[in-house]
């Protein structure tokens, strides 16, 4: 640029500078936006990772120690909900109802799995809508971003203990049937059913209950499928002991049958009592049913005593996390 032509900037240079300024401005703005998006994304990923990992720890591990739900004081405990039997996760991702109940009573335990600035809400929705929703940790999320984790799980409602399980299929095989004490008194009338010639009969099983359980549990008889009064063959049952046999048979009903009074009457106040359940069934294999004697904690509502609660049930575990 020559001073004597009176020019400081050429028009090209001015245009170029203008273009560069615009481009740099747009780039800077874009980088700013991208930078914000990256921060937001990494923050989201971080919360999602925390949510996923927390759900994994709850669902896949039994906690530390494995039987933490039996402890009275919850110091030095890591919560986990996986049901472990004999050291193995027997059915794969089955949650223990006892652990869920313990976590429900002590919701502060979940803080051990979360960063200090986060909180959560945990609910279990059974796929069978007739079963109640389990509200494990009920907190309301704050306004703002909430990360949700939804996992399909099985939960084992082990508040129900099975003491006896009579399956008529078993008696079709020679050698595995139980020789009943009644067969000594009435050998002709207390025989196993004959499915080949469609003759009805009795299926029996002995079982024992500890005195401690007799005092602390309610006992019911359940059938699968549920027996009603509208069937051709009136199936019946007898509960007695090898020492105190009785012929008083009673019919099944469509509701669980409470048998506390019979058990108390037969009990001899020993540390462990032996009982025998006899079930009269039809000779038609299609009308056969399984019979269970179950024990539940005393005072459990009869509505909770149901076959759905025996064995693992599918459900959705939904956990919501947010920053406090």
């Amino acid at each position, binding site marked *: 640029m020559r001073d004597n032509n009176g020019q400081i900037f050429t028009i090209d240079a001015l245009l170029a500078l203008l273009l560069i300024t615009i481009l740099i401005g747009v780039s800077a703005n874009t980088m700013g936006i991208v930078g914000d998006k990256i921060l937001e994304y990494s923050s989201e990923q971080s919360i999602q990772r925390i949510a996923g990992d927390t759900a994994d720890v709850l669902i896949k591990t039994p906690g530390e120690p494995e039987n933490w739900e039996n402890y009275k004081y919850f110091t030095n405990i890591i919560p986990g909900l996986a049901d472990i039997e004999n*050291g193995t*996760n027997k059915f794969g991702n089955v949650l223990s109802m006892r652990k869920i109940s313990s976590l429900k009573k002590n919701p502060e335990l979940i803080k051990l799995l979360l960063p200090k600035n986060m909180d959560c809400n945990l609910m279990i929705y059974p796929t069978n809508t007739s079963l109640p929703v389990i509200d494990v940790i009920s907190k309301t999320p704050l306004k703002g971003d909430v990360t949700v984790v939804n996992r399909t799980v099985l939960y084992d409602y082990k508040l129900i203990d099975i003491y006896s399980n009579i399956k008529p299929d*078993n008696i079709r095989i*020679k*050698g595995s049937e139980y020789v009943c004490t009644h067969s*000594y008194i009435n050998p002709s009338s207390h025989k196993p059913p004959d499915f080949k010639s469609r003759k009805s009969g009795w299926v029996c099983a002995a079982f024992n209950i500890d005195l401690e359980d007799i005092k602390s549990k309610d006992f019911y008889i359940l059938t699968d499928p549920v027996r009603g009064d509208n069937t051709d063959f009136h199936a019946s049952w007898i509960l007695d002991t090898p020492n105190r046999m009785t012929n008083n048979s009673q019919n099944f009903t469509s509701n669980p049958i409470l048998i506390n009074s019979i058990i108390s009457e037969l009990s001899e106040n*020993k540390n462990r009592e*032996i009982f025998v359940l006899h079930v009269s069934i039809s000779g038609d294999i299609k009308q056969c049913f399984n019979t269970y004697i179950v024990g539940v904690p005393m005072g459990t509502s009869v509505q909770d005593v149901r076959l759905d609660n*025996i064995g693992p049930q599918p459900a959705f575990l939904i956990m919501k996390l947010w920053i406090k």
Partner: protein
Amino acid sequence: MENKGYVIGGLAFLLVLPSILLLMVLVDMVNLDESVDTIIKSDNSFYISGDVERNIPIITRQVLKETVDNTISNGMPLTNSRILIKNAIGHKMDDLCANYQNNSGVNVRCIINSVDSALDPFEVELNSTIVVMKDNITYNRIVNQNISILCTDHRNKFSINSNDSNEISDPLPFIKCKKFGGMIIKNARISYGSSLKKYLNGVNGSEIYENASSPYYIKKCPYDPYTSHGNSTKFKTLKNCIDNGYYHESNDGACLLCRLEGRATCNHYGFETFIIPSNEGNKQIIIAPCSIDHVIFSNKNFNKPYPGESVQSSNDNTSCEIFLDNGHRAKYGVPDIK
């Protein structure tokens, strides 16, 4: 400067820099697939490991059943049942793991470390290591499982269903008596014919065991505590236990793994059952070898079967007679010999 284009060239270069930076940022944001892929592979390995672990008890029961059946059919004791069963389980697990390799490409191995008697005589303890490898992810853990030798666990609706193919039999009577001939299995009971009497050759009162019988399948007695057997009119509970062919926990009786080796007693906590003399026998005999299997099958070189006195148990239709010493009388709630 302007004549040589330095100003415009330099400014144009400045334009390129931000665009390169923008490009680098875009490429970084897109490149996230790798971590998700790692999570999926890791989950897959974990689930396959769980599957292998859940198959171990099923395969163990199959192997136990096959081993017992083979021993029963040839009547020969095993040299080392624990090693043989461990190897057999290992072979079957290798076949299972090969299937996983073929189907999912996951390299999984299950190494059976040991098979031994558990604290519960009706269980077998198995220790194994499961190793899963997929690309650069490795997962391994040591698993310890107690596996029931009984056919059903009535407390668990989802346990293996009871049927003839799952019940495990007692091999000991066949190892001891098969060579004498005449043993048959009928209605889930072993009928010894003359074989047991021949086995007891020379023992006082052994003639009572002509046509004796004992249970074929191992079934756990529900009449617990065992003293309840004797606490009943005419020992009805004892009679019912005998009719059902139940086995009882015993410090002296051998566990299943030792029974496969032909041992009636062992250092492990085992089980015992009654061997029932035939009703056709000599009613004058009051003292005879004790009717407990580990007593009758004990090593005759060291311990002759010790005697017991007659115990009659009956229901309203049938009766049976067994011989028990004071030790077993106390165990089953039967009054002592006076």
